């Protein structure tokens, strides 16, 4: 399969190279947003949110597999909250560092080779926004937001605070804010960082419920512009350059996807979905027209024309889509990969919305995929609610390996009650590693070189279902027996 896929891939890429050179409207899109190994500018490695950044560094020793557990303190958790933010990785000075925010109000800097903690920064609230790493005036800065309504810029080398920006003044009644993952971009020659946040205050005297996009100067934290656009929690923004202008795409729980102008923050278009939106939009540059892909809790993945927000195609999954879609280029074609609460991982053709493959897990697929090129193959890592982390072949959807990080830390989980973090992949000194902060309260680092759990053949689900049916029938009979015994005739 891999051989034939490779042949097909090369043939198709040769064919489509010509077409792409002429027709691709997104050509050169990444120029203003391209990042070096010293940067991790956004939630998924690129402001396009396409999750297909292959991070490679050749420094350091050989990495080993590790597990990082910050503390045994787990009582701060309340059902419905997340556990970790998604991680980010980058080169700080000569050192590679993995950054991850946590429910215990800390931001951790971890050595990705050994899993040792390098430093931590304690905030006053849970840190669920993925830290963004950027090099500003020769200094590596780390940007993230905390639920205590403060946005931070830290020196990535030692965790010292460079500046902080308070989005809402503190008062007794103000609630925890919801800060999305920041995105770092270059606008008119200077580096700016974009935050989307939701703040609320349920008091009668000073009611507040607002969702705003905020652009700050990376160097000093000065506000460039601020634009309210909704009243419900936003997703992480996705930034792309269309027709020479930076556009910001962001969804919110109110079911809308907003397109803001990068220079001014002005609302360009708005699109309403049929259900609320939890996942972040992704941008597919190499299709015509360029698409913004949005998954909703109506179970729909909608492809919108990035220029005007009109719907190009729509795909209906069996359940909610909380997983942010990833976009991957294979054989000259763009594919969209995402998971759904119907337990499946889907790969669709970005141009038409046709299904390329479907992979079924045994739990709700809440996590966003990460796509990377390893050993001349495009691979994809995605976590599922069946407590497994799957490694799939992105071309065929075949399962290659699966990892079992651990079980849910607290007794139960409700479908879609939270946004759990997604894995990332990085090549350290030629060896591919997957870093997965998991809901068992630990950050796991898996090596792709080590074969994990051997795949067992699945028993027929029909038989499993018949067993469940038999158990239900027996249970009902028992209850009937009890009722007949104790009820008056």
């Amino acid at each position, binding site marked *: 399969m891999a051989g034939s896929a490779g042949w097909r891939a090369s043939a198709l890429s040769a064919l489509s190279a010509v077409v792409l050179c002429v027709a691709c409207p997104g050509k050169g899109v990444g120029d203003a947003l391209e990042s070096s190994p010293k940067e991790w500018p956004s939630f998924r490695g690129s402001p396009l949110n396409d999750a297909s950044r292959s991070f490679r560094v050749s420094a350091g020793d050989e990495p080993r597999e590790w597990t990082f557990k910050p503390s045994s303190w787990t009582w701060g958790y309340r059902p419905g909250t997340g556990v970790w933010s998604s991680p980010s990785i980058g080169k700080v000075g000569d050192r590679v560092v993995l950054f991850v925010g946590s429910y215990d109000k800390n931001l951790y800097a971890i050595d990705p080779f050994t899993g040792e903690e390098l430093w931590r920064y304690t905030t006053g609230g849970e840190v669920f926004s993925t830290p963004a790493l950027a090099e500003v005036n020769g200094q590596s800065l780390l940007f993230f937001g905390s639920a205590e309504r403060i946005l931070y810029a830290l020196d990535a080398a030692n965790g010292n605070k460079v500046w902080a920006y308070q989005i809402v003044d503190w008062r007794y009644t103000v609630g925890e804010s919801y800060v999305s993952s920041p995105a770092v971009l270059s606008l008119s020659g200077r580096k700016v960082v974009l935050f989307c946040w939701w703040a609320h205050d349920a008091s009668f005297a000073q009611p507040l419920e607002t969702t705003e996009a905020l652009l700050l100067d990376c160097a000093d934290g000065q506000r460039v512009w601020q634009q309210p656009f909704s009243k419900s929690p936003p997703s992480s923004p996705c930034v792309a350059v269309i027709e020479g202008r930076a556009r910001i795409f962001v969804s919110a729980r109110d*079911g809308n996807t907003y397109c803001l102008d990068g220079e001014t923050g002005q609302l360009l278009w708005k699109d309403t979905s049929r259900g609320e939106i939890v996942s972040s939009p992704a941008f597919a540059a190499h299709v015509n027209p360029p698409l913004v892909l949005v998954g909703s809790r*109506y179970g729909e993945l909608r492809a919108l024309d990035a220029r005007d927000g009109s719907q190009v195609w729509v795909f209906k999954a069996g359940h909610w889509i909380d997983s942010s879609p990833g976009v991957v280029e294979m054989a000259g074609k763009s594919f969209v990969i995402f998971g759904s*609460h119907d337990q499946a991982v889907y790969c669709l053709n970005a141009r038409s919305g046709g299904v390329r493959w479907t992979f079924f897990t045994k739990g709700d697929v809440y996590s966003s995929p990460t796509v990377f090129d390893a050993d001349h193959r495009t691979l994809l890592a995605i976590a599922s609610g069946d407590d497994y982390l799957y490694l799939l072949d992105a071309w065929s959807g075949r399962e290659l390996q699966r990892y079992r990080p651990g079980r849910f830390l607290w007794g139960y989980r409700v479908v879609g009650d939270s946004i759990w973090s997604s894995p990332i992949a990085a090549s350290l000194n030629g060896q591919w590693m997957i870093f997965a902060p998991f809901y068992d309260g630990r950050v796991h680092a898996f090596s792709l070189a080590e074969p994990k759990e051997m795949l067992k053949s699945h028993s027929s*689900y029909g038989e499993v279902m*018949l067993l469940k*049916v038999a158990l239900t029938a027996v*249970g009902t009979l028992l209850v009937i027996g009890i009722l007949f015994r104790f*009820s008056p005739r």
Partner: protein
Amino acid sequence: MTGFVNWKLIPRTLIPFQESYVELAAFLAIFLLTLLCSAIRRHRQFWRHVIQGVSLLLFFFVISSCVGVFGLIRNVFDGASLIGKDDLNAFYLLGVSVLILSVGFHSGAVFCGWICPTGTLQELVSKVRRLFQTKKRYILPAGSAPLAALAAATLLFLWAIYDGFSSRRPFPEDSAVLWAVSLIVILSFAILFPRREGALKTFRAISLGLIVFSILLGISVYSPVHFVFCNVHDRASLLSTLVVMLSSIWVARAWCRYLCPFGYVCSQLNRVALRRIIVSEECTRCGRCGEVCEVGAIEKGKIDQAACSMCLACVDACPLDCIRYVNFGSFSKRAFRPAADAYRSSPRRPDSRDPTFLLLKKEAKGMSGEKVF
């Protein structure tokens, strides 16, 4: 998941976005229509069927979100947990359930008898079955033919599970099938032991307990009528909806009688509702009311309020007009105590058909311990 047609008419609806909430508006309209038509005494059952038809169309073509019997209970929990945090969604989740319960406080379980499409479909199946029978019973007798048919249908159901589920992976909606299994087991006992039917009705409370328990534990439990109620297209939901519908061949409205948790909640409101069904003591126990009751809630003038679905068929069928649908709450006990005393001392018997006097009689005779209703 695929292969089924999406029949929902309005593409952007039912959400409080863009300042519209079509779902709640539709529910409000159908409830107002129900309250209006339930007050009409002439051809009331005809109007009930009209409303049932309208709400069936509404559920099929307009309503998309989960307002199934389980969804309504789950949404209350989810919505209540969001108050103060995400008011928009809290309103969205709580709206329909609170509306149904509020109407329940006014006129009892009218949702069950007049609106619920699951009930309508079951009623339809049961009516079609009775067309072919000379002796029109709601529960088939324990003869060999009905039992053989039930056994055959059960085997078909098991085969459908094995065949339909072997070629696919699990879906969260699969738990719906297990409710259908329970229903089949209960159904067979209802046919074999018709006298113990009352005990089987306890399952509705157990069912409610299980739903609440599962919500608190965060387990995905899905309604077997998912397929009809909201925009879910999968085999398990289709199969369980079919079982719920076809079970009415053996026992009319079997799902409503034995398992519906939301029906249980609604019918509990019958005891405290403003408008209630009452029976006067002039009742001759002719049994006509029992013949028309789909859910077996009334027998010879004795109403089981906890099973009643407020379809008002008994009120319309009573030849002596002894069963009445009255505004109960407007008579407070304290206000009518002097009048009750007056009634007790009055040598003349007032008109027994006057609901005011029925209440007065209850007030007066209830004090001496005599059973009136």
